[in-house]
């Protein structure tokens, strides 16, 4: 033990001092709410800041790209998590399935959010919407309407770009396809889509637009808000958006594939009332405007104007498919992607 004990002790003390000085101060007048979030920190933090200003409740955050449900589950009864903010209905259902959520009874939430974007049992509430659509080359794609089914048409051979088929947004779209057409047809469709890809799936939705500008492909699959972010907020990517147009693609017998960002109340939330306050506040007018104008999402609250860029895509006709049907086909979609070797 004596080995290097003294310099080590000094070192440890120094480190502890650094950690202590940067450790967050937890005392705040309105108390705390602990949020685990998949929403990008940069997008969600401004919203939390306004919340804290209005309510005096401090928002403590862990943001990550993955694994938060499992973490909350493992942390068990002592978990500090109050609210989990998550994107993608599949993930939302995973949280419920893992038993890390609890029911919320809130008239505010029930009245504000349309029934299809919340859980009847109150385990999850949608706070904003996005759809997964087509980015098409302005130059090379004359048509202004397209169905998801059409993406497997051989006429697009070597002309489509997309990110990994296992990425949650593609996963949800494929799951929706299974819900519409069944697994066998979905497999045929995925094979067709795979055969039409210009390159191995990679990158993100933004890169899809870039590859269209570069002439590598004519069509790409992307979320509605990425295109708007590139056009309005990311100067160096503006040309990527400008080279493409957004087509609100639909299922042949349905509408545009929708997905949600949602909030759930953690099962062992230590600050339950603050957590519900935050959830209610997130669907309030201020936060919904921020979701619409800063993040370019579709608001869940009626009467909030859609951002002009998003509105310019055309009139959205949301797919009537129940979100739960998407979630329940999520694993099947992941299996199909492996089976047809979509990412290989």
């Amino acid at each position, binding site marked *: 033990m004596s080995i290097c004990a003294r310099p080590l002790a000094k070192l440890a003390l120094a480190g502890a001092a*650094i950690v202590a000085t*940067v450790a967050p101060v937890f005392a705040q007048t309105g108390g705390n709410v602990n949020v685990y979030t998949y929403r990008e920190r940069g997008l969600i933090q401004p919203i939390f800041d306004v919340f804290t200003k209005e309510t005096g409740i401090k928002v403590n955050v862990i943001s*990550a790209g993955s694994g938060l449900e*499992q973490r909350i589950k493992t942390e068990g009864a002592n978990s*500090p998590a109050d609210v989990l903010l998550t994107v993608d209905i599949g993930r939302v259902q995973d949280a419920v399935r893992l038993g890390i959520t609890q029911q919320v009874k809130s008239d505010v939430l029930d009245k504000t959010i349309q029934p299809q974007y919340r859980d009847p049992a109150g385990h999850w509430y949608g706070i904003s919407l996005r759809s997964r659509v087509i980015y098409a080359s302005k130059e090379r794609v004359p048509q202004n309407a397209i169905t998801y089914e059409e993406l497997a048409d051989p006429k697009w051979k070597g002309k489509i770009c997309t990110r990994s088929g296992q990425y949650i947004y593609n996963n949800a779209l494929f799951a929706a396809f299974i819900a519409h057409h069944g697994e066998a047809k979905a497999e045929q469709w995925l094979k067709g889509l795979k055969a039409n890809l210009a*390159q191995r799936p990679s990158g993100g939705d933004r890169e899809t637009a870039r590859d269209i500008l*570069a002439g590598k492909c004519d069509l790409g699959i992307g979320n509605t808000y990425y295109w708007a972010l590139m056009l309005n907020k990311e100067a160096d990517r503006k040309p990527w958006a400008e080279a493409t147009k957004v087509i609100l693609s639909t299922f042949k017998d349905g509408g545009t594939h929708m997905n949600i960002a949602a909030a759930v109340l953690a099962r062992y939330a230590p600050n339950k009332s603050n957590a519900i306050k935050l959830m209610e506040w997130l669907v309030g007018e201020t936060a919904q405007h921020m979701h619409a104008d800063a993040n370019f999402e579709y608001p869940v609250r009626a009467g909030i104007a859609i951002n002009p860029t998003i509105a310019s895509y055309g009139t959205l006709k949301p797919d009537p498919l129940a979100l739960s049907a998407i979630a329940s086909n*999520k*694993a099947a979609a*992941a299996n199909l992607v492996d089976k047809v070797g979509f990412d290989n």
Partner: protein
Amino acid sequence: MERWPTRTSSNQWVLTGATGAIAVLAAVLAITPIVSLIVIAIANTGDLWSHLARYVLPVAMLHTVMLLAGVAAATTVIGVGTAWAVSTFEFPGRRILTWLLPLPLSFPTYIVAYVYVDLLDAFGPVQSALRAIVGWRSAADYWFPNVRSLGGAIFVVSFVLYPYVYLAARAMFQTQAAQLAEAARVLGASPWRLAYEITLPLARPAIAVGLALVLLETLNDIGASEYLGVPTLTLSIFATWLNRGSLEGAAQLACFMLLIVALLIALERYGRRRRAFVALTHQGARLSSRISLRGAMGFVATLACLVPVLLGFLIPIGFLVREVIVRGLLIGFDTDLVRHALTTAGLAVVATAIVLLIGFSAVAAQRYLRKQAIAACVNVGSIGYAIPGTVLALGLMSPLVWVDEGINALARLVGGPGTGLLLAGSMAAVIVAYVIRFLAIAIGFAQAGFARIAIEFDDVARMLGAGPNALARTIHLPLARPAIWGASLLIFVDCLKELPATLLLRPLNTETLATYIYQFATRGNFEEGSLAALIIVAVGIVPIMYITRRATLGSMMRNRP
């Protein structure tokens, strides 16, 4: 066998006992996440496993093996080639190049991946210039290699990680290989014959160790392969966990990955066989005269050594600096960055201190107690380095919570309030992960450090009546100082760069520089994190320079268990 005669007082025994206990602790720490993972993996996953085995595992294995093979080949050629060149020849710029060659190590691999995608994509400077020169109108008019590919991943990973091989090989070329080479040269052997018949065979054990480190790091990578679209085993573990919500399936794949790790370690051991002839003569072993290369040959040598430095370090650094300037990141300085930098440094310092304490104590126990069991514990303690960060975090979560629940139960038993998640909900979780992952470095350095101290010193000291305490203070500690410094610097840098485990385990309101960059990266805006990336690299350069100077890396690796 007992090392301490009857004259040793009882508190000396407490001390040796404590080091022994620490050696056992090291083994327990390292084995915990693996056991936890296996427990998760043996759960029944229905027909998921058959699906994974049929569709996921073959593809993932194939890509992982190809990535490893490509990286192994490239890093061997680059690392051994450059090390041999700077050790054997004299050519313009050689001195500076010996300093520059190890520096790519200061980069986290994923950052270099982002840089090269930006540089080489259709709108990057390279292709734009190409189009302007040749007159092509769009990227569809010509073929250009895609960085987002297996080849791209091999390129990026190799140019970041070759320094492990370089440092190991160079340490060898400088020392005992040099003496034999000298003799062979006197007898008229050509440089090429020298290389094939003397230098390379002698350097093989060192190269094997360096290569093993490279391949373990490659397996650990998730950021680069994800961004470059290579479906490796690590990525498949993630996809299984996330898209099927199956931690069990992920754990099963992770166990498979541990098999690969075991295989790599076995290969390394095989590569290091018959290392007994490797005796390190510390001083005066440098090649007394290098062969002078003049004219074109000198130029070729300079160029050959410059290319890895350029691709692995200078170009990425230039890119980051440019982004910092263009984006005004210094002017519009994000003040949170100071907090994150302090958090990162604090975590790294605490973890480094603990790792050093455990690693050096455990190796001391190995020397003082001379028990097979202790040696085995020290060996087991080293395996943490082979556990990829993601897998480590997955396996670590549950045991941490169990300990916390135990503490809670105790607290309630004595009538106190619940203590919450003391470990799992605090920085302690991150620190434990760092300690497990980087313990092997401390153990390796400690063994190398102690190996240099002749056992006769111990005996003489003992005869003069010194106990382990006095021995440690007056002999071992001063003589092991370079090893302690080398280890602490390397561990510190690795802590700074660590991403996957930190991401999964960090507490509320906590970001490190690596997670800060990652947030921008997931948003497709990694350039906004350029300043943070530069800080990581800048801090990393210092230790790497230090290690280069002492060339302790090579010796530490030769003595790794």
